[in-house]
């Protein structure tokens, strides 16, 4: 009979107004909300694109030995999974870097469609999930055994829940901006990140290290790039019309 705070906020019938708010926002500012990496309608306003690279020698990624969980060990028998804290691509590009507007965002409406965070073959997919404050986050467990999601939040309230096989997805949101490391207590090699941001304009670099922030109304912005091991860098960019401004970040890598 434990009644966690989420119980009261999420599906307590008397909190009807919390359901109406997103609906109205959707009606009013619909087009504004489409995030840059969603392919489709060309967004009005300027875009910022660029590439994230590194200098120096990055640490060697080690293969993860999942002997403890036979189901996952077989799944990765062919191509062993490598650790993901520093993933490099061709041409010194850096993957899993969150690039977002940290200042100058004129009160854009919050993103609303849920972020899906999967646990597949004892791996977090995606390794870094970027989301807006109060955006819905659904964590799925599609492995034949249980996982335990433990976001080590300091600013937000920390929680630690198991998700046995076949258990319903965990629906949650984060109220305050924070970079939250996520670990699975049962499989110590499983690590991921929740990047909770206060802007809907963000992108996570893929294996080619590129990112694009579209739909930016003209104005002066500070663009920040964050990497879990090499820290953060910021640059100021002014967007005038609807042209594309190139921005690039270079991180200094250390072998250990």
């Amino acid at each position, binding site marked *: 009979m434990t009644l966690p705070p989420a119980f009261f906020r999420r599906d307590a019938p008397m909190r009807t107004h919390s359901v109406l708010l997103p609906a109205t926002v959707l009606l009013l500012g619909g087009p504004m909300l489409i995030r840059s990496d969603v392919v489709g309608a060309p967004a009005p306003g300027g875009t910022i694109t660029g590439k994230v690279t590194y200098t120096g020698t990055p640490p060697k990624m080690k293969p993860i030995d999942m002997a403890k969980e036979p189901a996952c060990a077989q799944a990765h028998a062919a191509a062993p999974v490598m650790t993901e804290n520093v993933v490099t691509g061709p041409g010194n590009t850096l993957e899993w870097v969150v690039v977002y507007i940290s200042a100058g965002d004129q009160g854009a409406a919050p993103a609303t469609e849920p972020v899906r965070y999967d646990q597949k073959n004892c791996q977090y997919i995606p390794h870094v999930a970027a989301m807006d404050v109060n955006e819905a986050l659904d964590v799925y467990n599609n492995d034949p055994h249980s996982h335990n999601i433990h976001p080590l939040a300091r600013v937000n309230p920390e929680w630690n829940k198991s998700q046995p096989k076949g258990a319903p997805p965990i629906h949650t949101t984060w109220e305050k901006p924070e970079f939250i490391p996520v670990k699975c*207590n049962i499989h110590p090699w499983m690590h991921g990140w929740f990047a909770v941001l206060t802007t809907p304009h963000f992108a996570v670099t893929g294996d080619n290290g590129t990112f694009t922030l579209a739909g930016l109304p003209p104005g002066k912005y500070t663009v920040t790039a964050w990497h879990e091991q090499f820290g953060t860098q910021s640059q100021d960019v002014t967007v005038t019309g609807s042209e594309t401004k190139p921005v690039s970040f270079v991180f200094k890598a250390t072998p250990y």
Partner: protein
Amino acid sequence: MGKLFAVVVTIITVVSTAIFIAHTWWLPPDISAHGPAIDRQLSETMISSGVLFVLSQLALALFAWRFGDRKDGRRVKPFPGGATPMVVFAAVLVGAEILTLTLVGAKVWAGVFQTPSDPNSLQIDVQAEQFAFYFRYAGPDGRFGATHPELINEASENFFGLDPARDTSARDDIVVPTLTIPLNRPIALTLRAKDVNHAFYVPELRIQQDFVPGLTIPLHFTATQTGRYEIVCTQLCGLGHYNMRAYIEVLPQAQFDQWLKDKAAQQ
């Protein structure tokens, strides 16, 4: 009613003892050097206490059968000799049984836990953490790197908190989640817990020892058969306690040396 009780108790005793004797659920075959002594001790205790168990249950059943109140006005009979035969039986018979079990048992226990490990045994450092075991081999330089709890970073597989940048002997340490050991060679484990109490239990090896945070506990054994067996945790350590499993692989010496060389190359 007394007869029904006697019948039920007898059935229960017979069925339970039969299952014990038939070994339907029994210890897995032993693969360690010290295991047979423990198995002997267990079967001795099983026989002696089994006899005591059957005797007392059947006595209870027999007396319940015979001494129901049959309204035939017969007088109650005290137990012949009063309480002294009980005390004598318990003190002498059970006492003798206890004495033998303790003397023999103490030797078996001392053989495993009170003797220092064989000097040329293979040293392996074992760390138990919330919900996994990790094993560390000294690597070619034969020396273990120092561990720093504050440097532990599971994302980059630095489970022991090694500091390869400044500590040269830590660079070649091999960290694996499966305990791979050579056949018929004494193994000396040093058990360290990273967070809470855990335990190292391999039923086939007849070996079990708790990890206590803050202590480094030695444990030594010798495996006498090859194969892949499960290491499980028997000390409650939190929600993943049931899934805190690792495997122990016993390889012939040649295969083990080859495995060690491959791992060293990967560092």
